């Protein structure tokens, strides 16, 4: 697995996609900061705390930019072997298909966590620039924890996207799939069903945005069910499919 992970990292050397994803990860903090500047220009006396800033940015990442961006990364990581016609080379090496799959999943997790930390870092820096209040060690640790929980949960939800990628062997269906998930997130914001739809449930769990109608366990189960179903479908399909 170490060798597989090493090769996955090597494949990203000089890849423009990493830089593009960093720009994508900066989108939510930048938009939040623009919103802050706008508010300051209208109501100069209003103060913004780090706690609110971290919460809002994380919410935007989990419900909007992250769902879409991580979907694009997933499509890139898993579809590039088809696009660059390298899968046939990897599978004529004595490496099992399942090991290959898990090494890519591990790479995806590292990438998502890195982008999450970049989002957090931008939020932190913009807070310094904007002079946000309430910067304490507790706020830093708590927000980092929430960001990382959100990242792991969104990572778990990458498996249905991987299945769509393998099935269609194309970027477009995966992007459409994640765009639909993102639009559904938007439609369900502040509604009780947000706790049951796996992608919006990530925000419910990670940001403790619980709804009174459904216990948080339902949200966790919804995420796990989608993740396990996606993983099972992916493993079965990938192991059974012919490499043309």
């Amino acid at each position, binding site marked *: 697995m170490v*060798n*597989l992970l*090493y*090769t996955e990292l*090597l*494949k990203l*050397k*000089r*890849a*423009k996609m990493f830089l593009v994803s960093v720009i994508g990860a900066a989108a939510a903090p930048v938009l939040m900061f623009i919103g802050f500047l706008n508010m300051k220009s209208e109501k100069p006396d209003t103060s913004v705390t780090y706690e609110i800033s971290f919460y809002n940015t994380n919410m935007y990442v989990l419900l909007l930019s992250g769902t879409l961006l991580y979907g694009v990364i997933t499509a890139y990581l898993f579809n590039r072997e088809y696009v*660059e*016609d*390298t*899968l*046939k*080379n*990897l*599978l*004529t*090496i*004595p*490496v*099992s298909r399942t090991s290959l799959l898990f090494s890519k999943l591990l790479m995806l997790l590292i990438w998502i966590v890195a982008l999450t930390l970049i989002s957090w870092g931008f939020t932190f820096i913009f807070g310094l620039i904007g002079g946000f209040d309430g910067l304490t060690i507790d706020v830093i640790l708590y927000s980092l924890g929430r960001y990382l929980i959100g990242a792991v949960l969104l990572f778990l939800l990458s498996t249905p996207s991987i299945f769509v990628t393998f099935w269609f062997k194309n970027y477009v269906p995966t992007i459409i799939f994640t765009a639909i998930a993102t639009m559904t997130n938007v439609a369900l914001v502040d509604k009780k069903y947000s706790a049951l739809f796996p992608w919006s449930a990530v925000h419910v769990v990670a940001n403790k945005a619980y709804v009174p109608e459904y216990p948080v366990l339902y949200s966790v189960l919804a995420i796990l069910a989608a993740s396990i179903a996606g993983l099972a479908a992916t493993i079965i399909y990938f192991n*059974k499919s*012919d*490499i*043309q």
Partner: protein
Amino acid sequence: MSAIIRTTGLTKTYGDQKAVDRLDLTVGQGQIYGFLGRNGAGKTTTIRMLLGLIKPTEGQIELFGENLFKHKRNLLRRIGSIVEHSGFYENLTGAENLLINARLMGVHKKTAIRDALEIVSLHQEPKKLVGQYSMGMKQRLGIARAVLHHPELLILDEPTNGLDPIGIKEIRRLIKSLAEERKMTILISSHILPEIEQLADQIGIVHQGRLLEEVSFEELRKRNRKHLEFQVSDDNKAAMLLEKELDIHDYEVRGEGKIRVYSHIGRQAALNRLFVENGIDVSRLTISEDRLEDYFIKLIGGGTIG
């Protein structure tokens, strides 16, 4: 000679269409086996099955005497391959692409990558990204990747596809040297007869998924050399006369009264007279002018090879 590749009743169907139909292929140790057929004949599907990329609908594959699907991981260590065009990560250099294979194949020798690049003369531009490689360079890098771990068996699917004549010549030279210097068994597929003719010592001709013929090139050339074929009443006596009277030694007694003479083309009247004057009845005389290409075209039922 032990068989390195042996398929039995190998079949692959897609819906109603049989891409490969009960293929019995045998490649002996140390052979360069030319797998010849038109585009769409089933060559690539067969090769993908041999490498475990496609599961057969029916039939068995034995490599090095072991069942491929029971011992796939161990067997793949002993094989190097190119399947159609070589796919690479274009954002990496040639050496970095090979490093991926070296790590996953467990090749620890420090000079292995440089050695492989040297074999294909790609060691002089270490910083060039594969995205900037020409088609020929990519195919050469594909060969470097295939031989990086010193395999015993090399499976090459149309390795010269898309190359210019110089590139084709270069790849041919490489394959020949690998066979001679490293004593590899090589299966090479192509739809171009002259290419296979210059490399292979055994060929299998595949058409519409079926193996029509598996024969050595030596036998095939003999069979298709320009010759005179006499149907005579006594082939032993005829042979004796050829040697004694005309000093002809390039002939073949093929049984049932058939005798082939590979020299003295154009002097069939003199040979006929010699037989008749010595009491041998000649009931038929044919002059073969088949070229190998004509033979293949006949075999696959018309059209062209390519």
